[in-house]
């Protein structure tokens, strides 16, 4: 049966009319169904998918952008809040320093005043004590002198001059002794 008859071999290359017709019918049907239904449907689905993915990517990009904006705003707010806090802190510090300085100066002034008052009072008392003493010494000297002299120095001016000279003497003696 392995016969390559010349007739059948070459007739292989001559298409039959019915074969041509069926081949054409088959091809036309395939072409039409593919062009009108299969490919448009697949293209539609694939485009839809691409669109959906693109939409999702766009959405993600927009969200990212929003987030970046929010962060920027937040950073800005945080920055200004920090600056404000710093300012408040500085103000408070300055104020505190001011208060302390004022209190200090006030205290100083008061202390000075107290010191001055005390000094004045002391001076006054000292002066009073001195005058009291000189009077007392004068009187004592006068009475002593009168007792010694037996005479009463009636004249107050002589009395005081006597007292003065007596004091001076006592003073110079005290000074030479010391």
């Amino acid at each position, binding site marked *: 049966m392995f016969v390559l*008859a010349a007739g059948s071999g070459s007739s292989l290359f001559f298409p*039959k009319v*019915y074969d041509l017709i069926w081949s054409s019918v088959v091809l036309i049907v395939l072409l039409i169904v593919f062009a009108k239904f299969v*490919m448009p*449907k697949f293209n539609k689905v*694939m485009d839809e*998918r691409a669109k959906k993915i693109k939409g999702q990517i766009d959405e993600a990009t927009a969200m990212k952008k929003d987030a970046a904006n929010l962060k920027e705003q937040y950073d800005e707010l945080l920055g200004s809040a920090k600056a404000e806090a710093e300012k408040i802190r500085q103000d408070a510090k300055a104020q505190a320093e001011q208060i302390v300085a004022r209190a200090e100066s006030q205290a100083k002034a008061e202390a000075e005043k107290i010191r001055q008052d005390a000094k004045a009072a002391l001076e006054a008392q000292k002066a009073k004590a001195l005058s009291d003493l000189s009077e007392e010494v004068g009187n004592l000297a006068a009475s002593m002198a009168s007792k010694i002299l037996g005479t009463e120095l009636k004249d107050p001016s002589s009395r005081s001059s006597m007292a003065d000279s007596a004091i001076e003497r006592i003073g110079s003696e005290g000074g030479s002794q010391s």
Partner: protein
Amino acid sequence: MPELLLASGPDFPSVSELLPSAPLFHGTVFAINSIILIRLVATALILLIMCVAAARAKVVPGRFQSAVEWVIDFLRSSIVYEFLGEEQGERYTSLIVTLFVSIFLFNFCENIPGANVAADTTIAMPLILAIWSLINYWAAGIRTKGLWKFLKDELLPKGVPWPIYILLVPINLLEIIIIRPFSLTIRLFINMVAGYLLVGLCFAATQWFFVSAGWDLKWVGVISLLGGFVMTCFEMMVDAIQAYIFSVLTAAYIMLSIPDNSEVGAGDPAKVSKLQAKIKSKKAQRNLSKVKG
């Protein structure tokens, strides 16, 4: 004599089996022989598969849809966009997909038990397919350039001294009218015939060695069976390759007919790299879509 032959030798396939009689509608132009019947059944199956896939196509694809989409994507990016660019190529996607899917599944019938012969193992089917290819590249040329300009570009290539035209015009005319479709037809047809004979030879020999040969020769049947197995695998590859070649050549012929992209094949490096970058980005985009999907 035939009985003697049958008894003595294997029932090898012959090309006469590829010229079957047409019992259905015998004698009319709608006669159907066994190969045409296989072709009609194959067509029905292709339509069923593709229509079911298309009808059930969803944005989030299943496995089957992904497989079909992978084929469409592959043809679109590696044939249509590669040769015709995205703008001009889009309108030919359907043509290329139809050609590839149909030819591949027609070819594949030769590996299906019961059919055992490719649905395009008569010259008529490859011829009609080739004629459709011819119509398309002529139409593409006429649509984009006009008939006169198309013929001028095809028959009178630039940069050739005029006396050569005396030789070139008939050769080129023959090329675009006869040689291109003829080569498409013969390449596909002969591959299918050869496949049929090769696989048939292996299995017929196996049958003969196992059943009719003496015990001393039965082991040869193992070799021929193995050969049949290998040849079947080989033919599956050939089926795909032939479908691919037919589609690629159709796209290439269309590319040669239309104006802008005709230089791409001729090797304008800037344009080629631009096209490749375009295809790459498209691929990346589609890959991304696959990953997301």
